């Protein structure tokens, strides 16, 4: 059951990243995907009775925090330049 919720979270996030054009929303959707993965890891850890999954969750927390700490300033800088959050406005960067 929890696995299904995790899959749903991940799928929602994925679809959000693909279809939404707002940069901030895309970042939030990515967080959603990461949390989906976290949920599945916790579930597996519980089912198998090992701690490896739980440890990985903390690793992902750290990575996600670091990632968002870099991503938000980048978005801020971009927005200051163009006054828009639309991802399509930045295609000329060829990122």
């Amino acid at each position, binding site marked *: 059951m929890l696995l299904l919720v995790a899959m749903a979270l991940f799928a929602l996030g*994925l679809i959000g*990243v*693909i*279809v939404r*054009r707002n940069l901030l929303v*895309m970042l939030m959707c990515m967080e959603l995907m990461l949390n989906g993965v976290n949920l599945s890891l916790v579930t597996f850890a519980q089912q198998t009775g090992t701690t490896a999954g739980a440890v990985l969750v903390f690793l992902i927390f750290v990575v996600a925090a670091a990632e968002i700490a870099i991503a938000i300033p980048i978005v801020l800088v971009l927005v200051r330049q163009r006054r828009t959050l639309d*991802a*399509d406005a*930045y*295609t*000329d*960067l*060829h*990122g």
Partner: protein
Amino acid sequence: MVLTLIVLLPLAGFFANGLLGDRLGKPFVTVVGCGLPIIAFVLAIKSFLVLLAGGGTPIVETVFTWARIGGQSFDIAFWFDRLSAVMVLIVTGVGSLIHIYSTGYMKQDKSYARFFAYLNLFLFFMLLLVLGRSLLVLFVGWEGVGLASYLLIGFWFEEADNARAGKKAFITNRIGDAGFLLGMFLLFWATGTLDMDRINAAFMSPKAPVVSASLVGILLFIGATGKSAQIPLHVWLPDAMAGPTPVSALIHAATMVTAGVYLVARMSGIYMHAEGASQVVAVIGVATALFAATIAVVQTDIKKVLAYSTISQLGLMFVALGVGAYSVAIFHVTTHAFFKACLFLGAGSVIHALSGEQDVRKMGGLARKIPVTFVTFVVATAAIAGIPPLAGFFSKDEILWFAFASERGGSLLLWAVASFAALLTSFYMFRLVWLTFLGKSRMTPEVEHHVHESPKSMTGVLAVLAALSAVGGFLSLPHFLEPMLPLPAVPEHLHPLETPLLIGSIVIAFAGLAGAAWFFGNGAVRAERMRQRFAGLHRVLAGKYFVDELYERLLGMPLCWISEHVFLRTGDRMLFDGTLHGLAGLARRTAGAFSRVQSGNLHLYALLVVAGIVAGLAWSFRFV
């Protein structure tokens, strides 16, 4: 160790002059460049005395083993017997003299050190050639002298013609070397050794090797025709006169071009059993002698006359080899080294005096102005013409005698043609004397004003060589070489003819002198009349029978066509370049297609990543 030292001294000179010469200045170059060959000459005399004291037993020195393959070892070994002794003494002796002469002749040249480095390099390879015991060492020397010759012909390489002459000499020699190599392979296959004394012994033993001696003989002779400028590979020698005159004297008259004669004499064990090959040698020799002599009659460049004369004299040497008189050929090599070196150096002195003029039509009347050059030149001319009792008379007379009387291929026809060549020799040489030194001056006033006798370093050498040309005939080398190279037998009934033929030789020599005097004395009016009468013949001779043009049509142009059309256009441009350009174009187009994906659209990227993950998962779950 002495033999090794003789060989290595000039090499040391090459390195010293080549690496340090420019920095340490001309005195250093002179001392090293001339000193080391002179020391080598002294050592050669010492070895020669040891050889004499030992009654002619060869001195052998093995320096080191080059390679060991299976049961065979290939040694760098030096072999000093009567034949090598004669050659080494000529090479170092005449070589040293010409080095000394060069100090005067090349004094003003900016590449003084380079010149002496090359000359020393040449001496090193030449000594390797004549001292090597095995054909392999001889071959290294053989190629090496070719290299030195190439470097020295193109010494003044700023002019394209000189560089071209060097290339021509090198490439023509390669053709001969192909024959030489094949002969070597055959010999090794048949006898299992490359040591020349062993090969000769194998052919002399009753159980002869299972190979046709004539085939080997002809292959080796092909090599000799290249190096010694015999028909059909003679074309490089006249062009080789582009080099400095001392080079022409040393390499293209006295030593290197006689390497072919030395090779055949050295391998006499094979040629004694190769009647067919010997006949080929004699016929090619006599044809070359006549052919080159006729060309020499009409040449107007003083060095070209001497070049064709050299070819002609080499032809006579091969006649002697062809009829089995090997020692007589070596005798002529020796006397020829003396008088032809003297002639070339004399010509160099003339050119020096006239500030570079080589055309005899613009000379004349030089006898009074450069008397030492004149006297020595006349002595050497008389020697080559065969006027008794000078050196050329003895050796040439012996060649003519054996061409007539030898049991091994001598014949009246051979004698007649060779004698006619000798007559022409005498004629064109005295023609040269008349045009250059006698008669009225045809020089331009400013050239005439500068005419001066050469410095002592040059005239001194000329005097020594002239003296050797005068008395060299009394050396009786054939007698000295007889234990090694016996003279061919002469049929009993021909013996009484020896004296009449001797007188015939003298008459021929003087007839040439008289002919030249008649045609070219008195302002050369008669010669001019003859020239107009036989204009067609003169054109053919002046054009050197158009052999160069024939080769150009026959070989040069087809090769150029094949290179241009087959190799360049079809092979290089279409096949190789086409393939590579095609592949490069394919890569560029593919990259162009892929680069379109990088649009900058984040959503597309995310979609592609997902698609990739899905595809990867689908692939990894395909068996589930």
